[in-house]
């Protein structure tokens, strides 16, 4: 038996039970209360009425959309208590109001909305004091506003006791809900504060009953959510967004976590789907007066038009981040939502939790999809891949998450990881030809994982008809892999085998994509393919480049030059563009050589013609040079990405080459030196130094440079060929022969090497072998382009 409690303590206890919803304890407390003070009988009636009503609602929760219940025996009892409490008029004003609110609520529960409105009209809800009110009363006021809104919505406007109609009435309903929501947030914040301080005082491991997620009940939930639902239903986006922001700015409580997660996501959706940069206003600004966001037919006020004596606490402090832009706010909301979704990740895999797992997966998936949309439109793939990596805890056997993760890695340039993740995707969805093709694309790109690439490409080809439109792409992929492997192979037999395989694959892939590969295809055939490709895609840079090379191989230099000019007009900045750095230079060099060759027939005076042509080439190279240099801000060399610097060095080397062909050793030396400043250890630089030395006539020096170049890059064919020639001049024939034979081993299609080899053999008196070499050189030269075909990128 509990000891009698003193008056004030008893009141505190009652207040606590009311706040915590412990209705079952009320009757006992009321018994004690009435034993103490005669005059509190009315209060007792009020408390009993309240306890019974709320107990009833706890046991029979109201479902949204349910029909009114009508009178119930239990509710009859409630009415008796409340009527008794109100009738005598002895209640203190506060309690009087409480009794009226309870009566109104009872009317609502019984379906008598008119009567409920009548009750509310007797109480001025707005006058009820929020400052210093006990927490249970905050909840009561919040519920009253919500209930009033519900009644107003249920009543046809004509029968309403309230005179307003139409938009005003809508507005009144919304205001009811918004007030209810605000006070509900305040109530929850206060509730949590009380519970925590109680927990602290008791030093109890249980911080109080609110540790458990508290159920809000129908009325508070309605109050918190109905307002923005109406805003959006009415097409008033401005108000809806404003309401979302108000709720989110309120300091969260445990009870509102779920709500906040959903609202944060929904607001992000609105921002991404229904707003844009120009229609955006920051959460701390007033919304624009006119906005296409709102249904023009139902224009209501754009901002809240009521005030409360006390509002829920909002996040505050110095340097709070406030989004200033559409995507910014969407991202912030999604990151918050993501961290909350992560909290709910169901980690156990036992069957009983399948459903929970599904729910947590779905809510997280939506957030990650929205993050992808938001970050994708801003090109932030690096950050996206980090976010999606966090999604992997949900991803067990979930194809979509794996695939998106793989694609984000790919977009972020993390190729090696992307291939690994794609492998898992293939396992999860073996029938989709896109996935292995993506993997091939990565493998034959920067990774240069040719064996892996071959495996992926075979998967696509093996899918047969299932791969439908992708099957051709599969053949292309496998052809490319073989072609690349052929380039890598050191043995001639291997090379030819791969080239044959590649050709076979290419022939099955009927040319629809431009980057035609033609190792081993005869030149006229190839010309046909390329022309076909150009028909399909008129200005593909690689096709044009290839066409130029093919024409040059057929010695149609004039046509080739025209093609190059055309390509240059379409791609004037090609050398800066990533990945194609050298094409322009190759072309510039091509120009020069073509011009050199061309001048002979074209100009009556070969001397001037040649000089004219080369100086034209030189000026073009120098133009490229200055553009590249100015775009690089050459004051800070070796900073930033390597690629532009390599391009610059290459341009210097090409310039040097042009000067060499113009027999200007001083300029050539200067250019080479510039390149050497950038890459002193490059074999190309050393090779060029050798050439300059040769031009100057210092054969020994040239030999030294060539030998250094070969020390760095032992298979540089051009160096080998020059060195062979010098040795030939020095009459060291057997050494020259050895080096040239090595060079032919490395590249069996280099006709000038064959030619040099022939000369060396001839000098050695080996005429038969020399003839063979010359014939080979002649044959090769007939089909040799000015640059090797392999400089054309082979990529998917």
């Amino acid at each position, binding site marked *: 038996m509990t000891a009698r409690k003193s008056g004030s303590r008893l009141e505190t206890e009652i207040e606590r039970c009311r706040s915590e919803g412990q209705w079952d304890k009320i009757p006992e407390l009321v018994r004690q209360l009435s034993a103490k003070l005669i005059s509190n009988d009315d209060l007792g009636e009020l408390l009993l009425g309240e306890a019974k009503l709320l107990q009833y609602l706890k046991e029979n929760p109201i479902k*949204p959309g349910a029909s009114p219940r009508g009178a119930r025996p239990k509710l009859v009892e409630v009415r008796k208590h409340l009527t008794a409490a109100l009738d005598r008029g002895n209640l203190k004003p506060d309690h009087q109001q409480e009794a009226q609110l309870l009566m109104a609520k009872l009317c609502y529960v019984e379906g008598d909305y008119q009567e409920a409105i009548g009750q509310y009209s007797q109480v001025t809800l707005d006058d009820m004091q929020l400052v210093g009110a006990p927490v249970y009363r905050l909840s009561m006021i919040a519920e009253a506003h919500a209930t009033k809104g519900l009644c107003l919505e249920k009543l046809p406007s004509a029968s309403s006791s309230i005179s307003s109609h139409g938009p005003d009435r809508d507005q009144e309903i919304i205001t009811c809900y918004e007030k209810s929501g605000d006070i509900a947030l305040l109530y929850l*914040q206060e509730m949590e504060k009380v519970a*925590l301080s109680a*927990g*602290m005082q008791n*030093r*109890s491991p249980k*911080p109080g009953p609110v*540790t458990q997620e508290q*159920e809000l009940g129908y009325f508070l*939930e309605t109050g918190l959510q109905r307002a*923005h*639902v109406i805003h959006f239903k009415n097409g008033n*986006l401005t108000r809806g967004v404003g309401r979302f922001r108000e709720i989110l700015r309120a*300091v*969260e409580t445990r009870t509102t*976590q*779920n709500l906040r997660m959903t609202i944060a996501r929904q607001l992000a959706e609105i921002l991404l*789907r229904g707003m*844009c940069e*120009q229609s955006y206003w920051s959460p701390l600004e007033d919304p624009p007066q006119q906005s296409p966001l709102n249904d023009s037919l139902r224009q209501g006020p754009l901002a809240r038009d009521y005030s409360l004596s006390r509002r829920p606490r909002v996040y505050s402090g110095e*340097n*709070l981040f*406030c989004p200033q832009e559409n995507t910014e706010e969407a991202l*912030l*909301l999604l990151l*918050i939502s*993501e*961290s909350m*979704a*992560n909290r*709910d*990740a169901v*980690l*156990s*895999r036992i069957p009983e*939790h399948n459903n*929970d797992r599904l*729910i947590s997966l779905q809510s997280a*998936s*939506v957030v990650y999809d929205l993050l992808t*949309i938001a970050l*994708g*439109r801003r*090109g932030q*793939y690096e950050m996206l891949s980090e976010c999606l990596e*966090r999604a992997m805890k949900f991803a067990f056997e979930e194809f*979509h998450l794996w695939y*998106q993760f793989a*694609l*984000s890695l*790919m*977009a972020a340039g993390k190729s090696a990881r992307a291939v690994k993740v794609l492998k898992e995707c293939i396992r999860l969805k073996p029938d989709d030809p*896109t996935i292995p093709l993506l993997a091939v694309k990565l493998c034959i790109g920067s990774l240069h994982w040719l064996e892996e690439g071959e495996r992926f490409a075979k998967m696509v080809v093996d899918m047969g008809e299932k791969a439908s*439109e*992708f099957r051709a792409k599969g053949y292309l992929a496998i052809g490319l892999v073989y072609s690349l492997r052929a380039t890598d192979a050191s043995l001639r037999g291997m090379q030819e085998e791969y080239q044959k395989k590649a050709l076979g694959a290419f022939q099955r892939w009927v040319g629809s994509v431009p980057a035609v590969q033609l190792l081993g295809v005869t030149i006229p055939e190839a010309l046909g393919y390329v022309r076909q490709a150009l028909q*399909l895609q*008129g200005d593909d*840079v690689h096709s044009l480049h290839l066409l130029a090379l093919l024409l040059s191989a057929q010695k149609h230099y004039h046509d080739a030059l025209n093609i190059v000019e055309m390509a240059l007009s*379409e791609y004037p900045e090609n050398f800066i563009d990533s990945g194609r750095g050298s094409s322009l230079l190759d072309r510039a060099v091509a120009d020069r050589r073509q011009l050199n060759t061309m001048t002979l027939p074209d100009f009556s005076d070969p001397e001037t013609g040649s000089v004219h042509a080369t100086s034209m080439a030189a000026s073009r190279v120098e133009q490229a040079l200055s553009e590249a240099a100015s775009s690089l801000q050459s004051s800070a060399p070796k900073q930033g990405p390597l690629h532009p610097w390599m391009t610059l060095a290459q341009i210097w080397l090409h310039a040097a080459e042009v000067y060499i062909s113009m027999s200007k050793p001083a300029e050539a030396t200067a250019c080479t030196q510039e390149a050497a400043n950038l890459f002193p250890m490059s074999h190309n630089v050393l090779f060029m130094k050798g050439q300059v030395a040769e031009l100057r006539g210092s054969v020994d020096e040239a030999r030294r440079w060539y030998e250094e170049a070969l020390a760095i890059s032992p298979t540089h064919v051009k160096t080998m060929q020059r060195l062979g020639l010098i040795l030939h001049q020095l009459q060291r024939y057997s050494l020259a022969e050895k080096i040239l034979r090595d060079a032919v081993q490395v590249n069996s299609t280099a006709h000038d090497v064959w030619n040099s080899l022939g000369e060396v053999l001839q000098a050695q008196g080996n005429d038969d072998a020399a003839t063979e070499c010359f014939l080979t050189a002649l044959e090769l030269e007939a089909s040799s382009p000015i640059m090797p075909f392999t400089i054309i990128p082979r990529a998917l």
Partner: protein
Amino acid sequence: MMLGSERGVVEEWLSEFKTLPETQISSYAGSLHLKKALVPALYRVIQDPNNELLEPVCHQLFELYRSSDERLRRFTLQFLPELVWVYLRATATRDRHSNGCIEALLLGIYNLEIVDKEGNSKLLSFTIPSLSKPSIYHEPSSLGSIALTEGALSHHDLIRVVYSGLHPQRETFTAQNRFEVLAFLMLCYNSAVVYMPCSSYQSVCRMSSRLCVCGFPRQRQKLWREPCGRVVLDPEFMVQMLTAVYHAIYNGEWDLGKEALDDILYRAQLELYSQPLLVANAMKSSLPATAPDGSRGRKILQVEVTPTISRISRSAVTAASIRRHRWKREDADGVSGGEESFTLNDPDEGFSSGASNSSQPSGTKLSGEGGATRSSSLKKGVTGWLSRERDKEPGQTRHRDSSADSQVVLRRHQRRPSPPPAITLDAIELSPVRKHLSYPASQALVRTASASSSRSFDCTDMSLNGGRRGAAGAGLEVGLLGSTQAGLSASVAHHFSTSSLQEERLARPGEAQDLLSPGAPLTKQSRSPSFNMQIISQV
């Protein structure tokens, strides 16, 4: 062919603006949308490369775009998708110089948009929010340590990213600059997309479908016939198309938009472009399964009412349930945070209700300033957990058996403002003397599994005082992970569990064994760093 009336409308529009005095521009801009027949007639003109009105129309559209009135600029902008389509169609049909005026208009808009009012090159930038910085919507401490992942730490400060800018003036289109210009134009369109009328949304969907499908086998499935070859597309441009289509889907063009989305996806797959694939997959997968009622021509931005109660059952192990344990412990202990020397990266950790953190009295305030957040989560990581007493487990409820508390002599080695009387298993260590002893097998020593993790923390061993040990024998009295069922069921008032497992399960023989044996099916979980903290028995 154009009807005579359409022609008339366009001609009237052409002459009207020319004679318009400066003072009436504003009222003209306000009334332009009232000319209902004008927009369809202009579409007709743009679509027909041989129409002699095309050139004056392009010229006038450019004049409108140059005006200072935003409404006039937007009037021109609504035709952008159609202009882009007509231009790209021409490039693909080698008919490239037939529509020089469209090229000029596109380049004109581009050259106006790349500079600001003062003529400086425009930089479009935005800030990437970071959860480690407080915002108007959150407080970092309330989000657990998610904000402290490696990625987040590497850009701990908010970073501003330029997503478009420093575009050079362009005099002509070349194959090389084509998509740089077009992608930027689409970006401009998207930044004003809500001001566009429905006809423009239809146009953007049409443009997207056609650009992606023309010349490919899928074209045969389409009802429209377009004598047009393949149009080269660029991944970034495709992402911009997706953004516009996404907006159309939710703002009245559900069917057309969905079709365009599918077509972009189709093309992105064929081209093996990862960026548009990524974005299109996300759009498709987050689309409502069926068209909402009356979606045609209406916004379908809907919000649903959510129950505030989590839909996830409370018995499921989630990151949050783990947090709840830790959290309870902290509430109980009133621990202060911040001093711990050990660090623990816990990127998986979800959300902790920091709402209460923030409102806790200062003694328990875990974080909030500077790096405190980090250590708070670390501490939580190291913290042991007392199993939660539930009503389902009568008799074990802690506060009803407070006498047991006194049996447990555990102390944290950090200074704590007020060591609570009922400390149980919280970053526990032996009294300093014991700390350096080697651990005899018979002692109830527990260490965390993550001792091997690179983080150093030295105080995770625990022991109970002798009395308790005697009672249950063999050092198994603490129902820790790895302890036997016997230990669990021993008549010890407390049983401890790790947060990673539901305590209810521990009480069931057999199952617990399964879950607890080290190296057994925890593989999935043990990937997650929060499981670094599992406490396993040495015994």
